[in-house]
């Protein structure tokens, strides 16, 4: 059995973001990097399937510059068998159709039985890549899964819908699923696995070999939302606070009118 899991390296969301000089993406200076949260669920689920069936071969794929190898090592330490690094210093400038095209081009002749991706990336958040890959490969996809079971080529998942409603969706392998929060708790890599990961195969492919599609959309501008009226924190004695509040409500609203 062959499994593919696609991951992305994203900035830590606690970082201070600035818009880059290009005005089309964020500035990458001063950022700390980590694995996209949803991709961690994907890796964990892929590793669980591998452990369940035994003898599966699990490939992790990541597109980006040299620095994404750090994040790939974590996936390898979590239990992926081999890494495919699509070397692309300009990955951030590519739109979801191009990214999906790269992945699909890589996966096309590999006969993966299962492909796991995150439901979306934490930085771009398009939620398109996974489903586009499935379309390009002509296999079924199930998005936003919060539960996953696999047996003898059958996949049974639960998808998260609006308002807490869940849907049970089944498919036959080969198929692609995109993983949502709640699917599992990603494991913390053990030290022996961290050490083993250092010796696992990590193949680098130039992006030019895999990029066969053209971009279909363009980011024209990136900006922070305009600041709306800020909150107001009142401080002081309780009695005075009440008076102040009444005053403000009278002056600025009509609720006491």
């Amino acid at each position: 059995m062959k499994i593919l899991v696609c991951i992305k390296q994203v900035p830590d969301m606690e970082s201070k973001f600035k818009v880059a000089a290009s005005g089309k993406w964020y500035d990458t200076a001063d950022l700390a990097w980590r694995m996209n949260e949803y991709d961690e669920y994907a890796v964990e689920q892929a590793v669980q399937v591998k452990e369940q069936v035994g003898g599966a071969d699990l490939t992790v794929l990541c597109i980006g510059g040299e620095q994404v190898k750090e994040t790939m090592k974590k996936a390898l330490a979590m239990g992926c068998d081999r890494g495919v690094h699509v070397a692309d210093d300009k990955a951030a400038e590519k739109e979801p159709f191009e990214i999906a095209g790269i992945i699909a081009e890589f996966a096309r002749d590999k006969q993966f039985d299962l492909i796991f991706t995150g439901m979306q990336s934490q930085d771009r958040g398009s939620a398109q890549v996974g489903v586009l890959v499935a379309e390009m490969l002509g296999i079924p996809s199930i998005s936003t899964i919060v539960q996953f079971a696999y047996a003898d080529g059958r996949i049974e998942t639960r998808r998260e819908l609006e308002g807490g409603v869940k849907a049970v969706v089944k498919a036959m392998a080969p198929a692609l699923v995109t993983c949502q929060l709640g699917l599992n708790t990603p494991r913390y890599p053990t030290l022996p696995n961290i050490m083993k990961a250092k010796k696992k195969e990590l193949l680098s492919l130039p992006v030019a070999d895999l990029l066969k599609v053209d971009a279909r959309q363009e980011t024209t501008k990136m900006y922070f939302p305009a600041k709306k009226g800020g909150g107001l924190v009142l401080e002081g004695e309780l009695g005075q606070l009440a008076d102040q509040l009444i005053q403000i409500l009278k002056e600025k609203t009509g609720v006491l009118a």
Partner: protein
Amino acid sequence: MEFTREIYWNVGHGAATLVPMYLLFIIALAILVYGFRQRIAVYRQGLPLDRTDHLGERVVEMLKDVLLQKKVIHVAWPGLLHGLFFWGFFLLLIGTTLIVIQADFTDLLFDIKFLKGTFYKIFSIVLDLAGLVAIVMLGGLLFRRYVLKPEGLVTKPDDAIMHGLMLTILITGFVIEGARMAVTETGTPLAPWSPVGMAFAGLLSGAGEGTLLTIHKLTWWFHLLLAMAFIGLIPFTKFRHILTTSANYIFADRGPKGKLVSLDLENEESETFGATSLKEMTWKDIFDADACTLCKRCQDRCPAWATGKPLSPMTVVNQIGEAAFTAPDSQLIELIGKDVLWSCTTCRACQEICPAAIEHIGKIIELRRSMVLMEGEFPGDEVMAAMEATEVNGNPLGIGYATRGDWAEGLGVKTVGEDGDVDILYFVGCYASFDKRNIAVARSFIQLCQAAGVKVGILGREEKCCGEPMRKMGNEYLYQTLANENIELINAAGVKKIVTTCPHCYNTLAKDYRDLGLEVEVEPYTVFLERLINDGRLKVTAADLTCTYHDSCYLGRHNDIYDPPRALIRAAGGTVVEMERNRAEAFCCSAGGGRIMAEEKIGERINIRRVQMAQATGVGVLVSNCPFCLTMFEDGVKGAGIEESLRPRDIAEILAERIVK
């Protein structure tokens, strides 16, 4: 008349006495040796560990601890009972040995008698009183164990055997003496030199001489049998502590206090890290259980135990020993329990008070290491999140690393990268860098340094968590990663001295980092500031302040720094009203041992307990010296609903308010 007595009076000094007596002695010794050989084989299941370096010094320490009962009497009740019992019994042992030396060697072979004249009188009264003291103290210990029954004291059949045997040996000793004196000494000038013996003689005086001789002879043989039984029983009962606890003083950890053993993570051969089974613990970990006397001093002081958590340091130590003797293949983590192992705050109260020099913390950390490094397990998801946050941003709070130096804004402090010509490098730590409450402490410290004309540099955004909480939680890999990065930075900066405001950073940099190549001098801010004040470089006005002071575990017990912080408070015009549990007996704030990253889910909250202790002093300010303590106390006063009446503060803040401009 010559002041002496006939040794072997009434029992005879011929072969009919000596042969069976020495035969019994040899048998008893043989049993003792046999018993210990069996136990030594069990100790040897553990990994090797060298604890016989500096042997001469180790033996001297052992003699001090054994003969002076230093650690035992440190806790007066019931330590003094044991101490006095020990000294009484020890004198009796010396007395008996002197008798054997004279009767069976010097007199027998060379006609030399030394138990005579004034020396005999002293010998007589000393032994007489030693016996009395031993009986009274044993009575006290019996009363405590069987009548007072202190909470948590484990009483086993062993204890009954020990108390009964000791008491019978002591009383039969006096019966023998009394019977002999009733026949030979009553009314002689020697009699007053054995007052207790005379009292027993008085009790027996009604009997005729024939009866007395029979009583004497039978009791003498009975007493001898009991004494031999005592020797033979040593390895098989808690009597073994006479030898094992003494030996443990020799094998004691010689420090530095609170420095953990570094794992070799580069070794490609190792497949396991930390310990899950006895084979991965050291022989000392097994031996410690044999040295334990179940005195429960550790348990009495354990903040986890005191607040309803399942951890008793005493139980952990003994479970390891019991497994070694009964089920050597046990999985120790399951046996002891994960909640037990995660509950430890590494406050060192157990180890500091242990009269048997047992090392509790290292065992717990070894087992935690296995859970974290081999299984990726933590006490909760929040701890795993803090570990991951530290991997990404170098701090367990998960705040973007790039803002690490922002706290110093406006103070004119440069990084050592910008200007390496500094008097000290201030290793700030995560809480003083990112936590609003503790940033005030860091800023106060800078103001104090500037007032004293000390040029301070920081590492700024490049600084990473020292790794202490992660290490204590068992994550040696993350600790070493962080430590190596910090050490490389510090060494590159070429600074001569590091000062910390966090005692966890201090202990880690000053001790643990030595294994990884940091050699620069490290000092905690309390000691550093005290010197600045003493040298007249830092001037503060004394303004009235009545407060209580909390000894953090890592400045106090781990480093014995108790006086400098108090001197600083005095210099600031403060008066310290001590909490009942202060200095080496201080009660942890709950945040050590990496617990700062964990939610306290079991039992009562330790920090609330501690702020209540502070409140009980009746003062309005709780001064501490540690960012974790300050954080836990700020949280604790809210939890206890006493934030109006008790204000947690750091020493640096108190001093900074009093800087003479």
